[in-house]
């Protein structure tokens, strides 16, 4: 079946920091349109996995194929352009720029304008800027951030900053979205709202999503498949119900053989 060709294929991915094995022999086959969760105790290697997938740090070992391309040693900006976008555990926005500019920076990844068009304000430049602005407003509408377009990014409340970061990631037109603890620090209502948003992005935009999350309600509620990491190793993989009853998972979280 051509539809089930994996979008992302990870083989034997390992990373060690001065002898500490942060991730070991990780593997993943992700079909287009899947929404999977990666869980595990603190220090299990979840964020390291995202950093490897987005080229922020080089792997010690292993291979990453995205959409048929080998991106194992590609730079973060090249990986972004091939269609992988991420958010960060500790929100990374362009803090002193406006909400609109944050989104525009994401959008311009796929919109090129030439220097002479900029300097001479040629029609190419004007239409470029106009389409950037329209698309930015459309994205802000989609994420219910339209009212804050002109606010400075770091003036937004925490929950909205998380949502803005998702907007900026979406602006780069990803096929694969990596969300690193998007519900961290949110109250139950906000987390609930976020869960609905992620489900919507998944179904309406047809995005493939990998979600790192500690909030089990969120993970169990929307993920089709879950991987569990502990001490850098993949210890379990399966449907949410299977994971909830897996002895190794319970042990990793509670420290006792369940």
């Amino acid at each position, binding site marked *: 079946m051509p539809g089930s060709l994996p979008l992302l294929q990870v083989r034997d991915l390992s990373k060690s920091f001065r002898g500490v094995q942060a991730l070991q022999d990780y593997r993943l086959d992700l079909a287009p349109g899947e929404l999977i969760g990666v869980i595990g105790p603190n220090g299990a290697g979840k964020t390291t996995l995202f950093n490897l997938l987005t080229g922020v740090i080089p792997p010690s070992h292993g291979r990453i194929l995205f959409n048929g391309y080998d991106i194992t040693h590609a730079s*973060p*900006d090249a990986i972004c352009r091939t269609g992988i*976008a991420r958010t960060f555990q500790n929100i*990374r926005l*362009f803090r002193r720029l406006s909400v609109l*500019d944050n989104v525009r*920076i994401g959008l311009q990844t796929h919109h090129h304008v030439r220097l002479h068009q*900029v300097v001479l304000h040629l029609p190419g430049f004007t239409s470029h800027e106009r389409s950037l602005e329209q698309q930015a407003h459309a994205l802000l509408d989609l994420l219910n951030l339209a009212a804050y377009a002109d606010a400075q990014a*770091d003036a937004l409340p925490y929950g909205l900053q998380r949502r803005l970061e998702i907007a900026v990631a979406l602006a780069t037109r990803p096929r694969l979205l990596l969300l690193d603890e998007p519900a961290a620090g949110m109250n139950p209502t906000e987390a609930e709202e976020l869960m609905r948003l992620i489900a919507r992005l998944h179904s309406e935009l047809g995005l493939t999503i990998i979600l790192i999350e500690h909030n089990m309600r969120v993970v169990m509620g929307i993920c089709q498949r879950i991987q569990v990491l502990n001490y850098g190793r993949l210890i379990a993989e399966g449907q949410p119900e299977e994971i909830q009853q897996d002895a190794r998972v319970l042990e990793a979280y509670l420290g006792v053989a369940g």
Partner: protein
Amino acid sequence: MKRLLPVLWIVGVMGLAALAQSALNDYYQRVLAVIAINIMLAVSLNLTNGFSGDFSLGHAAFMAIGAYTSAILTLPARTKAIVLPDLPPWLGQVELPFLIAILIGCALAGLVAFLVGLPVLRLRGHYLSVATLGLMVIVQVVALNWQPITRGARGISGLPPLTTLLWAYGLMLVTVMVIWRIVHSSLGRAMMAVREDELAAACRGVRVFRTRLFAFVTGALFASAAGALWAHLITAITPSSFSFLLTFNVVAMVVIGGAGSVSGSVIGAVLMTLLPELLRRVETALAIGGQPLYGLSQIVIAVLMLLVMIFRPQGLMGRHELIQVLAGLSGARNKPSSAPAELAGEAQRVA
């Protein structure tokens, strides 16, 4: 209307420059020309120091390249045969129009910035500042020791006084308009993204190194043009003209005006040119026992800088542009709802 605005600026500024050129005496004309040159220097330095976030201290080096190139290329062949007899023959013969000489200087400075930027822009923060300072020292030492071309410490004097107010304000307008348009485009937003968070910028597809190099090279081009104007205004250049003091002055203009604001750099440049000029008169007027108070102006300026840094560390304009502030003032009267977001941002910055 929006399309007409640049035309209005050009006509307005050039008209005033032409008027000043015919009506004012030499002293005022010289002060006005220095203002235009300083605006060019501050606005171009702001590209790196304010927008892409690389605090360069090498601006004087690019200025020197522009000044020497233009000096050698425009000096009449007869004069060159006497003051620079050891020039290579083809360089001794050549006599170019001012504009061509300026453009060649820009190309050279841009090339140097590109070659130096390749290694130096791999550095960050203080390391980068010190490395660009090194560039300035290298250029100065070359100018000091490359006798056949630069006459070493004696410098080159008797340059044709080509820098009229029309030249100075014409090139200043080009500088400000080009840089204004760059920073208000995708290119400028990419620079600011790099300044705010390099890793986040890379993860949003910004080619970080290319963006920083572009800002550095573009800044160097305009610094070189300013250097050429300066050489033909003063009509004499020596290696010591392009010292750390000059870099320091331009950095001060950028910081006081507001790093990350084009209009801030313009304001900073005007203030930092006019104030010393005014205070110099006070020095002589406030003579105590027939002894003028030399040095007073430097002290007053230093104190003013301290005050700005204490009470407004982001500079007079911060990262805002004058037209935004003016629009904000008139807008606030009409719709006060936009104020809180602005204030919240302000409060966070202060905290």
